[in-house]
C-alpha cells in the first residue's frame, strides 16, 4: 500500500509537483499517467526515497519514506526510467549484487536469483554482460533487479518503453502476474497499457492530480483516451477534485 499525501517538490523557483495525493492499495496495479513533464518521474523518485519532497508525506505500508527511510526502502522494488545496470557486469553477478544490497540473506540469494531469472525469461542470459544486452533484455534485467528481494511494493517507471510489440506484450503479462498481493505503481503514457493491466488510474498534469478513478468505474463506452485528453485539457482552469465532472462530461459526450 502506498499513500501519497500533498506531495510538493520544487527545484529552486520551479515547482514540479504541486500537491499530489493518491493511494495505491495492495493487490492492485495503479497506472500513473500524464503528459511528458507532468511530474511522473519526480513523484516516483520521491516515493522510492531517491529524493525528498519539499513537503508532503509518502507512506509505504505505513512506513514514512523520509523518517523511516531504510525500513521503507527495503519494501520497494524500483525500476527507474533507465534500467540501472552496471554495464561491465554480468547479469548474474549484477543481480546477486542487487540482492545482497537489498538485504537478501546469503543463503537465499541463489534461490532468489533462479526465481527472477525464470520469471523474467533471463535464464539463458545469466552469463551475458549487461552492457551488451539489447534494450528489451536490459529492461527485463531492470525488472529482475526490482523483483529480486520479493518486495511488497513495486514502482515501475515506464516499464515498456522502447520495447518491441512482442516484448511489450510479455512484460505486461509479467507485471499482471506479479501483481498478486503486491502494490504496483507503473507510469506510462501508453493508454491501452493502462486499460489492459491496471485496476486504477491516476492522471496528473502540470504537477496536479486531475483524475483518480478505478477503471471499472469509468462510464461505460468511454475510452481512456477521451478521459485522459479531457482531464489534461481541463488542467489550468480546473484544479484537482474535478474528477467526477470530467467523467460526467466525457460520458455525456459519448452517449
Amino acid at each position, binding site marked *: 500500500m502506498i499513500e501519497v499525501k500533498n506531495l510538493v517538490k520544487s527545484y529552486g523557483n520551479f515547482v514540479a509537483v504541486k500537491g499530489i495525493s493518491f493511494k495505491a492499495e495492495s493487490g492492485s496495479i495503479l497506472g500513473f499517467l500524464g503528459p511528458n513533464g507532468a511530474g511522473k518521474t519526480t513523484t516516483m523518485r520521491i516515493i522510492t526515497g531517491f529524493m525528498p519532497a519539499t513537503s508532503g508525506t509518502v507512506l509505504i505500508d505505513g512506513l514514512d519514506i523520509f523518517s523511516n527511510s*531504510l525500513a521503507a526502502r527495503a519494501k520497494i522494488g*524500483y525500476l527507474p*526510467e533507465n534500467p540501472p545496470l552496471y554495464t561491465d557486469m554480468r547479469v548474474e553477478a549484477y543481480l546477486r549484487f542487487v540482492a545482497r*544490497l537489498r538485504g537478501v540473506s546469503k543463503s537465499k540469494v541463489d534461490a532468489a536469483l533462479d526465481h527472477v531469472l525464470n520469471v523474467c525469461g533471463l535464464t539463458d542470459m545469466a552469463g551475458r554482460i549487461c552492457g551488451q544486452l539489447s534494450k528489451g533484455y536490459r529492461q527485463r534485467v531492470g525488472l529482475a533487479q526490482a523483483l529480486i528481494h520479493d518486495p511488497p511494493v513495486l514502482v515501475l517507471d515506464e516499464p515498456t518503453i522502447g520495447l518491441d510489440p512482442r516484448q511489450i506484450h510479455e512484460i505486461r503479462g509479467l507485471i499482471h502476474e506479479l501483481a498478486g498481493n503486491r502494490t504496483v505503481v507503473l507510469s506510462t503514457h501508453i493508454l491501452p497499457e493502462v486499460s489492459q493491466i491496471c485496476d486504477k488510474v491516476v492522471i496528473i498534469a502540470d504537477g496536479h492530480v486531475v483524475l483518480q478513478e478505478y477503471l471499472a468505474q469509468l462510464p461505460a463506452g468511454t475510452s481512456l483516451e477521451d478521459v485522459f485528453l479531457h482531464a489534461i485539457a481541463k488542467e489550468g482552469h480546473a484544479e484537482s477534485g474535478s474528477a467526477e465532472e470530467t467523467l460526467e462530461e466525457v460520458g455525456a459526450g459519448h452517449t
Partner: protein
Amino acid sequence: MKNAITIAGKELAGYFVQPVAYVVMSVFLLLGGFFFFNMLRYFEVMLNAYTAMQNPQVLARLNLNSAVIEPLLHNLAIVLVILVPAITMRSFAEEKRTGTYELLLTAPVRTGEIVAGKFIAAAVFMLIMIGLAGIFPLILVMFGNPEVGVMMAGYIGLALLSITFVSVGLFTSSLTQNQIIAAISCFGILLLLYVISWPAQAGGSQFGDLLRYLSLPDHFGQMVSGIVDTRDLIYFASVITVALFLTQRAVESVRWR
C-alpha cells in the same frame, strides 16, 4: 558494515574488468622499475667512485636506503598524484551518469555505507598496487643488506599516502557526474597539498608552520626516512576523515536539495 563490504566487493571486481586498472598498475610499476634501475645504477657508480678514491667517510654514509629506496618512494608518490585520480574518477561520477546512482540510493543502504564501500575498494586496489611495487626492496634484500625496518616504514608511508589520495579522489568524484572534472579537480587538490609549503619561508613563522603542517611531502618524507611518528599518522588520518566526511555529505546532499 555488511552493505559496505558488498559494495566494496562489487567495486573491486569492477576495477579488474576495466582496462584502466591494468593500465594504471602497469604505468606505476614500469615507472617504478625505471626509477629503481636508475637509482641502483647511480648507487653503483658512486660506490665504485668512492671506493677508488678511498674515501671511507663518504662510503660509510652511502647506503641503499637513502640512495635507492628514499628517492624511489618520493618519485612513486608523485606518480600517484597523477594516477590516483584516474582510478577514483569513476566511483561516483559514472554512477550518476549511467543512472545506477538511483539504484544505490533507493536501496536500503546508508550513504555512509556506500562511501565506505567505495573507499575500501579503492584502498585495497592501492594496497595491491603498492604491494606489487614491493618487488624493488625485495630485490635489494636478496642481493644486498638494506635496513628492512626503514624500508617498511617508507612503504607504509606510501600506502597511507595513496589511501589519503583515494579519499580526496572519492570526494571530487562525488561532486560531479563528469569523470574528467572529477579527475582534474582531484589532481589539482593533490598537487596543491604537494606544493603548499613552498611559500612557507616567505609566509612568516606561524603561517609558515601551518603551511608546512599541511604539506604532504613533509609528513610522507618523515616516514620514508624511517620515522613513524604519531603526528604524521594523525595528519594522514585527518585528511582521510575530512575527505570521507565531505564525500558522505555530498552523496547525502541529494536528500536535502
